[in-house]
Structures are given as C-alpha cells and as structure tokens.
C-alpha cells in the first residue's frame, strides 16, 4: 500500500508538474513587441537525422530581427515520423501561434504537414526536395514552398553531364525510401530526353551492411555509368562495392551525398564521382560573378565558427535559405498586418509567392504563383570528387 502510494504519487507528481509547467509556459510566454514567430520542425532523430541535425544547427544563424521586428524560432524534432511532424505542426499553430513553419527534412513528413498548413492557412517552407510538395500549385499547395532544388533540376544536370561524356546506358541504385523513389521518378525522363537508356534499377536500405547482390545485378546489365541515389554517408556503400567488384565506369551521386562525412567515409572509393549540388558546396571555387558566392561564404564561415571546421553541409544551407526567403518576405507582410494574425500569415504567403531575386546560398529565386521553388540553373553546379575534396566542374553548355 505504501509502495503503491509512493509510486502513484511519484507518477502523478511527474505528470502533473510536467503538464502544469507546460500550461504555465504556454500561457505565459512573453509575447514581446509582436515578434514574428517561426515554427521549425526537422528530423533531428530517426532515419533522416543526418539531414535534420545540420538543419536544426543552422537555425541559430538565422536573422533574429527583420525590419525592426524580432523574429523567434521554435525548433522541434519530428523523429522523421509523419505523426510527430503533424503533431508539431498543430502545436505550432495552436500553442505557439506561429506565422510560418519551416520543415520538415523529408518529403513524406512534409506532405502531411502541408495538409495542416493549408487547412489553417499557415505558410510552410519545406526543406525536403521532392517537387510533389509544391507541384502543382493548387488550393492546398498554395501555402507550400520549398528551398531545396527540385530533383528535376539536379537530374537534368546529371543527364546533361552523362550525355556530354558519351554515356549511353545507366544503372540506378537508390534508397528504399521516398528519397530513392523521388530520384528514380526524376531521372527517368531526364535520361530519356537525352536518349540514355536506364538498364537496371536496384534498391538498398540506409542501414544495409552489404549491397553486393545489387552491385552484381547492376554490373550484369553492363551500364556505361551508374548513379547512386542515397543521402549522406550511406551513399558511399554502393560506390565501394562497385569498385570492389571491378566496375570501371563513371559513378554519379546525388546532392544528398554532398557532405564532408560522405568524403570521410567514402575515401578513395568515391574518388572521381560526379554529382550535382548546390553552389554552397564549392563556394570558394565559384566564379566571383556567381550571385551566391558571397552569401554562401558567409554562411559557411558563420556555421563553422559555431559548430567547428568541416561541419558544414548543404542541408544546413537549405535551412539558411529558408531564413533568407522569410527575411525577404516578412517586411512586405508587416506592412499589411501585425504578426500573429491570420491577415499577417496570408500576407506573408503572398509575399513569399511574390519573392523576386532573392539570393540564396544556392542560386537565385524568383517565385511565381505557379512555381513555389523559383530556382533556375544557377541553383545547381556540377561537382566532381578529386583528391578527397569537392571540385567544381565547368558548366556544361
């Protein structure tokens, strides 16, 4: 009985105090000077943690004040889980009364969040790549934007490079998830347009310890080149296995692989690989007239000052770009209404949709009512891995 009481009392105390704290906090958060409140939900844990962590890190670099107005960021983790992403979304809307939401890191979670955003008329700026998030712009997607380049833009870069280098047939190996799936969908038409055949398609899982079977199958189809659609360090495994099994042709990676950990893990196995990427990846090598060069260099130096040398990645840059986009749009919205009101959110959405010549770390953006990405070729560079580093390739025609 005594024990029972103790346990029950303990639990009750924990629950009640935790809940009470929650209540107090939610009620009493100081809402000083009508700050613009931005909800950020990223996948800091779960399968997409390698995307979510740098994204969450980059939040600290975003502007704290825009046009004299303070901007607050509330960062939550959605564990790469749709349910949590949507719950975070609802929390932002009902509890934090945010004016816009940034996130999430992957397409499936974002797709579900967009539903809630549209329902509550809150703009959502996604950090996930798939074009489905913003295309076609309809009643629902009216409220959705994204900063990463469309896979299509990147796929086109790969296809162009392949065509230029005489590749006639390609084998594809990608993640068994939304990322791999999305890339397959984009690369198919891009290759077709260049008359390149896709001769084999294989899949693997992020935590797989071996892709020998897939590699053998790919090589059996005798492609001129192979492309690997994986994000982060796991993208190195197929490259290694292919090398090990004696594949001599060129290997293409996607911009998902573009971080320093990939180079560290891939080592000499990824030497020579070609991939499309955001300009930020090779900021220092960009020609001085590239519009993104300055801002990208600033982002890199700020980020590395805070998180250590070599820690920067393009994922963080997507978050930074989202910040730049909002920074560009907020002043216009402030002219229309006060933050925290539906009018402000609508105005903010309109302002984002009308954003013109916003310079990202990754290209220049011109949004239109039918294009909620707004990027052009300037958002993509082709990069090759040479001597364990990213090397900018000259732009192909």
């Amino acid at each position: 009985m005594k024990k029972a009481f103790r346990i029950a009392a303990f639990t009750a105390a924990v629950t009640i105090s935790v809940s009470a704290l929650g209540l107090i906090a939610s009620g009493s958060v100081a809402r000083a000077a009508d700050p613009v409140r931005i909800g950020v939900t990223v996948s800091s844990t779960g399968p997409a943690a390698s995307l979510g962590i740098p994204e969450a890190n980059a939040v600290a670099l975003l502007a704290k004040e825009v046009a004299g107005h303070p901007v607050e960021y509330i960062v939550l983790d959605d564990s790469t889980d749709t349910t949590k992403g949507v719950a975070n979304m609802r929390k932002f809307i009902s509890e934090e009364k945010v004016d816009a939401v940034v996130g999430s890191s992957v397409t499936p979670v974002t797709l579900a969040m967009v539903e809630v955003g549209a329902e509550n008329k809150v703009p959502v700026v996604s950090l996930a790549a798939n074009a489905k998030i913003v295309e076609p712009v309809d009643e629902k997607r009216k409220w959705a934007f994204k900063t990463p380049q469309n896979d299509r833009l990147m796929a086109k870069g790969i296809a162009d490079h392949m065509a230029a280098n005489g590749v006639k047939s390609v084998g594809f190996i990608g993640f068994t998830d939304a990322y791999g799936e999305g890339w397959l969908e984009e690369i198919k038409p891009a290759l077709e347009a260049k008359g390149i055949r896709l001769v084999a398609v294989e899949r693997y899982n992020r935590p797989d310890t071996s892709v020998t079977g897939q590699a053998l199958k790919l090589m059996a189809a005798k492609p001129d080149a192979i492309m690997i659609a994986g994000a982060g360090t796991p993208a190195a495994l197929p490259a290694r296995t292919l090398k090990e099994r004696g594949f001599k042709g060129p290997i293409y990676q996607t911009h998902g692989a573009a971080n320093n950990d990939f180079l560290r893990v891939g080592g000499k196995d990824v030497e020579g690989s070609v991939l499309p990427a955001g300009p930020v990846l090779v900021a220092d090598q960009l020609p001085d007239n590239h519009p993104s060069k300055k801002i990208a260099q600033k982002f890199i130096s700020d980020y590395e000052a805070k998180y250590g040398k070599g820690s920067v990645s393009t994922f963080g840059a997507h978050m930074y770009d989202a910040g730049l986009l909002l920074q560009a749009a907020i002043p216009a919205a402030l002219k229309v209404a006060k933050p925290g009101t539906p009018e402000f959110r609508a105005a903010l959405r309109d302002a984002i949709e009308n954003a013109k010549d916003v310079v990202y770390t990754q290209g220049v953006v011109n949004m239109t009512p039918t294009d909620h990405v707004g990027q052009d070729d300037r958002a993509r560079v082709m990069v090759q891995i040479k001597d364990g580093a990213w090397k900018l390739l000259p732009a192909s025609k």
Partner: protein
Amino acid sequence: MDLSIFLILLQDGVINGAIYALLGLSLVLVFTVTRVIFIPQGEFVSFGALTLALLERGQTPATIWLLLALGVVSAVAQVWQGRRTLSARRVLAIAGTDLALPAAVAAVTMLLAPMKPPVVVQIALTLAIITPMGPYIYRMAFQPLAEASTLVLLIAAIGVHLALTGLGLVFFGAEGSRTEPFSSAMFEIGSLLVSGQSLWIMGVTAALVAALGAFFELTLTGKALRATAVNRLGARLVGIAPSMSSTIAFTLAGFIGALSGVLVSPLTTIYYDTGFLIGLKGFVAAIIAGLASYPIAGAAAILVGVVEALASFWASSFKEVIVFLIIIPVLLWRTWGAPVVEEDDH
C-alpha cells in the same frame, strides 16, 4: 545468375551471417540465463564500431563518459539494493568494478587516443570501453526486475534500446563511419575474390564460437551459466547467484557486441542506429533456434545472411520482406514439429 555470381553472393551472405551468428549466440546466451530478450545487443555493435572509428581518427570517444556514468549509476544502484546486507568488502568490490575500472579505462583512453596507437591497441581499448557496459546496464535496468515476466523484461529492454540509441546519436552524430580493414589483402580462389577482412571475420567468429564452446563445456563457471539457464532455482539452491550468472552473460553480450562491431566496421558504414537491424537479424536466428540452441542459432544466422544476399540480388526492394517472411514457415515448422505442450505463462 551464374555460378560465379552465386558464389560471390554466398560468400557475402556467409560473412554477414557470421556477424548475425555472433549476435544470435549472444542473444540466446542472455535469454537463457536471464530471460531478457536483449534488444539493445545491436547498440553494442554500433558503439563498438563507432568508438573504434573515433580512435582511428585520433579522437577521444565520448563513450568513455558513458562508461563512467554507467559505472557510477551501477555502483549506486548496487549499494542501494544491498543496503541491508552490505559489507565493507562488498563495497570495495563494487567500487573496484564499477568505479575504478571504468576510470582506469577512461584515463588510458584519454592518454592514448591522441597518440593514434596501433590498431591492436585501438581494438583493445574499444573492447575495454564497451564490454563493461553490458554488466552495468544489467545491474541498473534488469537486476531489479529479476523476477518479472518475460514481457516486462522485454519492454525494459526496449527502454534501454531507446536510451542507448539516443545516446549513440548524441555521441556519434547521424553520419556513419567506416574503419580501415585489418587486412587489405585479396585472395583469389578460383573465380572468387576473397578479401582478407572477410577471412578475419570468419576466423574470429570461429575462434569465438570455439572459445565459448570450451567455456560452457569445460569450465565450472560455464557450466554454472548453463545450470542457471536450465534451472534457475536449482542453481540458486547450490549457491550460484543469478546475479553472478547474469553479470557474466551480460559481460559476454557486451564483449560479443563490441567485437562484432569491430569486425564489421571495415566492411560497411556503421551508423548510430545500424545496430538495431543487425541485432534484429541475429534475433531472427536466435528465435529460429528457439532461443535455446547455440548450433541452430549459428546455422540459422548463416541462413539469414545467405537469404539476404540472394534476395538483394533478385529483388532488392523487397529484401527485408523476404528475409523476415522466410522465418514464418520456419517458425511454423518448428511449432508443428514440437509436441503441443502446455505453454508457460511467459
């Protein structure tokens, strides 16, 4: 698929299967002795691999702090649990295993890590850091639950798994690592290319299996573990404390996990959460063996590895589906093969 491809896949499957086998054996061991289905087994693999990777880069792995923390909590838990019958000698013993040992390991690691010692030393350090976590975790999480049902123990194991995975992310980050192979030699056997690393894995696995066999068959302590597994009460009646057997079982689990991590890390990139799926496949093998038989667990693990390799060739999208669904007929066969007996409650 021609013969040479088949042979390559077979080799690949057997190597992966060897790792699953180690984990499967460890799971059977822990379960029979303690009734804990030790889901966090896989985390030791990740921790081992990633600790080694950090040492290789000349960094001090954060896992030493975890080791120290676990040691302290374990010591506190033990003193608290035994507060009525504690002797000075016992307190000293606890201080020795739970405080002095991890402190020594941590100190040596901090000293040696920046010097990039030879691989052998790195591996020894890794094993020394990870192995004691097994018994510490047992004392903190499972010892107080010794008489609970299997289901409760399983849920507690899941709790430990969640906590360790979270810690893994904090310590190692989301990106993975791969270590240098022990041997970069390649041998050509017929049309088959065999890497030195895979020979290492097979060799170490075989040696470990043999050592475990000798331990269980030839030493009294090993027999005491078996005795605890067949009859806990009987073991207690002859003075074999379940806590002792369990501590040994968890120490072995920690060791086997860390060693598997060390072995597998040159082959593939290991992430903070890779361990779960690897462990789950070891678990599949252990279950096929009815959580009871070591030889069957070993054989089943190889089977899982080979099926996985073949499935990744034939239908890579559905590889996991094939690997996991293949066990259902095996389980059915095992159930039907066994006489219908009254089931225990757990």
